[in-house]
């Protein structure tokens, strides 16, 4: 079976999932087995088919599983958000359509990914500006202490979502040129090879940027995501574990310093260490959210409470039992309603997407493609780790979206662009091996 026919076939179960999910929510809500769910499933399948045709004509050899896996995630997102809030789901569906359009446009525009290399400094500068935008007076927005949003008139977006792609593109292109020098011109001290000072500079700049993010944006999660992607790329480019350990040490030192000085980050860490402390639980901006998230997940059990069964609001009042259920805590809602089995399913979908990215990196023939695929895979995986880790109390909870599931236009759009780039790389790589 050809790659494209596999992709086409895989879109069918994705649409079935959407139909089943909506049907279950309708049954719970209105007590009827509504055929509207079939209509929604058909529309979803139709939209995916259009995107599939764009891939078929422009990137015929691209990886067949990436797009259906992403569609599965989007279907989880649409069902869960619909179950939380109908108006939000309508907006999310609109963003999904815009995302697919952008996905197609990106595929057509960067079919040849070497174009990106030509504009690497433009991309790098734009990404850094995007990251700093939320702190500009007038357009920046503070949400729960972190500066992640930008509001320009009626348009609000999260620039970090787009910046992560730009930074990976730049670093891939930069490391492709300097990786030989980083390794060969290094000074050897015992078993550790230190890169020459001249080339250590850019590494320190990236570290400084990650620290700046921590101070400016006050978000440990995005900072970890960016720096982690950088270290992953550095490891792939140089095969030197010492660089990674050195970088982790730097990050830990910087993170510890700022965590103890920036109040907002300190609060998050306190809430993480002891979420059930009554004093922290009742405090504004305390551990209420993370504690409720843990309760919800425990309540899910093995197979979950069922679609639309999760209690999001305290009955009879307006106060929220699960704050930010449609964004930060959507994973907790999924665990509550579909249980451990459903949650593992979601995580396996992410795992497979990352596996496809790494596979693409392995078969790619030139350094830039290898680094780009590995970097995009790493940044995607780290984003999932940061938010799922936060919700499950592995690391402090921060406001990063769950890619392609969480409510949010920027997140959907940016992740579709990321996916389009991965497909473009894999098309080039697989055409060579085929």
């Amino acid at each position, binding site marked *: 079976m050809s790659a494209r026919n*596999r992709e086409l076939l*895989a879109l069918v*179960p*994705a649409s*079935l*999932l959407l139909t*089943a*999910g909506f*049907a*279950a929510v309708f*049954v*719970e809500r209105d*007590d009827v*087995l509504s055929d509207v769910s079939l209509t929604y499933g058909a529309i979803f399948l139709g939209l995916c088919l259009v995107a599939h045709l764009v891939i078929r004509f422009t990137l015929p050899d691209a990886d067949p*599983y990436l797009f*259906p*896996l992403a569609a*599965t995630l989007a279907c989880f997102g649409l069902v869960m958000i619909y179950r939380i809030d109908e108006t939000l789901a309508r907006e999310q569906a609109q963003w999904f359509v815009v995302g697919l359009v952008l996905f197609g446009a990106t595929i057509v525009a960067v079919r040849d990914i*070497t174009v990106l290399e030509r504009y690497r400094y433009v991309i790098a500068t734009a990404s850094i500006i995007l990251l700093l935008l939320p702190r500009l007076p007038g357009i920046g927005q503070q949400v729960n202490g972190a500066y992640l949003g930008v509001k320009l008139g009626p348009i609000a977006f999260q620039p970090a979502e787009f910046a992560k792609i730009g930074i990976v593109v730049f670093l891939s292109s930069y490391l*492709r*040129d300097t*990786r*030989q020098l980083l*390794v*060969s011109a290094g000074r050897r001290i015992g078993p550790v090879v230190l890169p020459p000072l001249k080339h250590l500079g850019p590494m320190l700049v990236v570290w400084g940027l990650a620290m700046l993010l921590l101070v400016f944006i006050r978000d440990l999660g995005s900072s970890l995501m960016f720096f982690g992607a950088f270290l992953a790329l550095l490891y*792939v*480019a*140089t*095969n030197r574990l010492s660089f990674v350990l050195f970088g982790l040490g730097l990050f830990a030192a910087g993170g510890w310093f700022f965590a103890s000085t920036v109040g907002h980050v300190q609060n998050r860490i306190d809430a993480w260490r002891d979420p059930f402390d009554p004093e922290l639980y009742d405090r504004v901006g305390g551990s209420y959210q993370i504690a409720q998230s843990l309760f919800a997940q425990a309540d899910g059990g093995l*197979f*979950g409470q*069922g*679609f*639309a*069964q999760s209690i999001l609001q305290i009955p009879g009042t307006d106060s929220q039992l699960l704050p930010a259920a449609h964004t930060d805590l959507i994973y907790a809602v999924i665990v509550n309603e*579909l249980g451990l*089995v*459903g949650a593992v*399913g979601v995580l*396996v*979908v992410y795992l*497979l997407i990352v*596996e*496809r990215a790494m*596979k693409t990196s*392995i*078969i790619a*023939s*030139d*350094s*830039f*493609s*290898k680094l780009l695929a590995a970097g995009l895979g790493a940044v995607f995986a780290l984003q999932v780790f940061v938010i799922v880790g936060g919700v499950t109390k592995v690391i402090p909870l921060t406001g990063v979206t769950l890619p392609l599931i969480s409510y949010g236009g920027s997140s959907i759009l940016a992740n579709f662009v990321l996916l389009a780039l991965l497909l473009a790389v894999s098309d080039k790589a697989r055409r060579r*091996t085929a």
Partner: protein
Amino acid sequence: MVEPASVLLKYGFLIVLYLFLVWVSRNALRDLAGKTVSRPAPAAPAGLVDATGLHSLTPEGDGLEPQLVVERGVGLQPGMAFDIGDGAVLGRGDSAEIRLQDPFASGRHARLIRQGGIVVIEDLGSTNGTYLNGELLQGPQPLHAGDRVRIGDTEFVYEDR
């Protein structure tokens, strides 16, 4: 009150999800095991091992045919390919195997040497320098497929098909 239809739909949802995941995983695993060509790393001469391990070394006589493909250049047709064989000198002079007509090229400008499975490029003290991927070449560097070599206004792409 939990509707039976809803319970059925939930389990149906989970079953479809897992069947889908098993299908993708099985194909992905077969893909990982089968198509990836794991080339045995030959014992390369000391100092020439690709230090970063990003590229697997190809043993000699593996059908590796390194070429420089002209991207643009003075007096050269774009798309023209020069076989490198076991090595070649690029330059304007008569002793160069790859003859350039670029006014910025020196007589013997740069040298390509094939050592084991990799091709190394080295500047031969030229006046205007050799650029590898837009950066001035300093010392010998191994070439990878897709690398761009520029001398004056002449640019090549290295291919190893």
